[in-house]
């Protein structure tokens, strides 16, 4: 029989503490869409996405209704488009983005990811064309997300790609300057990119994935923060236990939704991503969790340790709750999407350097950070190189999603709306790394990559 207190606890999590399933992401392979005619390629892609995902939004809404749990986003990820660009020119590549965007609009989904290239060791012709086309593709589409993997622990860091991505990010910001440089909010640079990540902007359908697959990303920072607050004065070991138990419950919901979506769509279940993904809503913030542990404000000394505890406990709790775990799995710290982070950045408590340290112990990287519009491409490449190095050396995923807000200076705020939130423009160290970046080449893989 159902226990009344269990029912009340679940209801409270959903009503008061912003528990939700962040996303159901349907991965679709586009290998069979290949063509050397740009028009035909775009049509093939559109047809494939439409035929595989036509039920996604309806099924998501039905599941939401059945279990009373909000499913915030329904998304699609596709095979990295660079693999289809081998015989395309830039217009052909942009045509792919337009086809994806058209399908996404017609399906009613929130985002479509996979305008991506994997260039950790070097760029193929297709990858080169795709990367070149990213600024235009993101400027002329609304729902397409792009990612570029520039490094891995196995391959090292492709510094030519890092240099190029600095320029691409700047160009993307300039082309979308009239919309708060929003193009950059849909572009992420990765090290060790996971192939089954359901979260945007970094989702793509990896090379070893099945024809179609369902991946689910959970959320629920509000639930964790409330549980810690209720615990009162207790040791950090006890806090870790509380987080584990809460993460277990949150992830179980993700698993339930993933199974149900997989059954209803007739698509194999891939993974549940055990992530604490914040939203700009008050109470749905990872920063508040850190503050509820006893920090005056996120960014204070001790923040990295608190985040390390949180990240580890989330994984330990979540891993038993799901049969398959993958993606990024950990705490997210996107500045613009987290009310607590926004406040900390605005008050100066949280700086880029501290965020960089935090990324060494959590699941993503420098995420959704607005920087001054006059930041040079070389400095952006320097930021990327630093962040990517942390990922490569620590055998983990790291990523950079910075937004050079054209026309804005430190202290201004850029508003992206919706889940993307608003970002206070943060100061950046402007000393030039230009000579270092211009050297190009590849930073060799670290010694511990040689595990065989």
């Amino acid at each position, binding site marked *: 029989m*159902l226990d*009344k207190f269990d*029912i009340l606890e679940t209801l409270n999590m959903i009503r008061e503490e912003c528990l939700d399933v962040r996303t159901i992401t349907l991965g679709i392979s586009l290998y069979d869409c290949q063509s050397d005619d740009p028009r035909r390629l775009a049509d093939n892609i559109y047809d494939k996405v439409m035929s595989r995902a*036509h039920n996604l939004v309806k099924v998501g809404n*039905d599941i939401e209704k059945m279990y*009373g749990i909000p499913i915030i986003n329904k998304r699609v990820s596709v095979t990295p488009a660079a693999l289809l660009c081998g015989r395309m020119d830039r217009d052909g590549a942009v045509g792919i983005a337009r086809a994806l965007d058209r399908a996404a609009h017609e399906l009613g989904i929130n985002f479509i990811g996979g305008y991506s290239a994997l260039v950790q060791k070097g760029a193929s012709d297709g990858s080169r064309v795709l990367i070149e086309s990213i600024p235009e593709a993101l400027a002329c589409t609304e729902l397409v997300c792009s990612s570029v993997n520039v490094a891995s622990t196995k391959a090292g860091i492709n510094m030519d790609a890092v240099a190029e991505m600095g320029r691409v990010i700047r160009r993307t910001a300039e082309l979308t300057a009239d919309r708060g440089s929003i193009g950059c909010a849909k572009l992420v640079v990765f090290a060790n990119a996971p192939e089954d990540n359901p979260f945007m902007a970094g989702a793509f359908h990896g090379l070893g994935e099945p024809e179609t697959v369902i991946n689910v990303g959970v959320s629920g920072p509000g639930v964790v923060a409330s549980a810690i607050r209720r615990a009162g004065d207790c040791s950090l070991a006890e806090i870790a236990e509380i987080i584990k138990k809460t993460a277990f*419950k949150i992830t179980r*919901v993700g698993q339930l939704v993933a199974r149900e979506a997989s059954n209803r769509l007739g698509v194999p279940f891939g993974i549940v991503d055990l992530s604490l993904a914040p939203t700009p809503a008050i109470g749905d913030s990872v920063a508040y969790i850190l503050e509820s542990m006893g920090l005056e404000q996120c960014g204070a000394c001790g923040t990295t340790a608190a985040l390390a505890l949180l990240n580890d406990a989330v994984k330990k709790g979540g891993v038993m709750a799901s049969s398959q775990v993958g993606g990024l799995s950990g705490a997210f710290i996107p500045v613009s999407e987290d009310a607590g982070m926004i406040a900390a950045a605005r008050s100066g408590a949280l700086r880029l350097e501290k965020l960089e340290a935090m990324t060494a112990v959590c699941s993503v990287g420098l995420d959704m950070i607005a920087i001054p519009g006059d930041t040079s491409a070389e400095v952006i490449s320097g930021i990327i190189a630093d962040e990517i190095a942390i990922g490569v050396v620590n055998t983990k995923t790291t990523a950079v999603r910075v937004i050079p807000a054209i026309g804005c200076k430190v202290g201004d705020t850029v508003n992206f709306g919706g889940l993307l939130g608003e970002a206070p423009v943060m100061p950046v160290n402007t000393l030039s790394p230009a000579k270092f970046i211009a050297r190009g080449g590849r930073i060799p893989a670290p010694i511990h990559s040689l595990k065989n």
Partner: protein
Amino acid sequence: MRRTVRQRGTWFPPEKPGPPPGKARPMKAVVSVIGKDTVGIIAKVSAECARCGVNILDISQTVLQDYFTMIMITDIDGITVPFPDFVDAMARIGNANNLKILTMHEDIFNTMHKI
């Protein structure tokens, strides 16, 4: 007009969609009602249950400082409407009476609290 050859780059949904989902595994549902106390809340909610062929198994109800809280466990094996419609019908009663009524399949509670 029926199209025999599909034009590339245009897409139409399949002509015969599969059976509508929602009644695949009917079991129990939990109806929770929260709001300011008024006369006849239980009557309205249970009347709607009866209309939809939903059998009430257990009701636990309290009034705390004028606030009405009820958790109702129902058997939806004999439900005569699609489950999502029942959820909507309940939510409508809630809106009409200034109450918050959530109807949820029991599986969410079972998976969250039982290993």
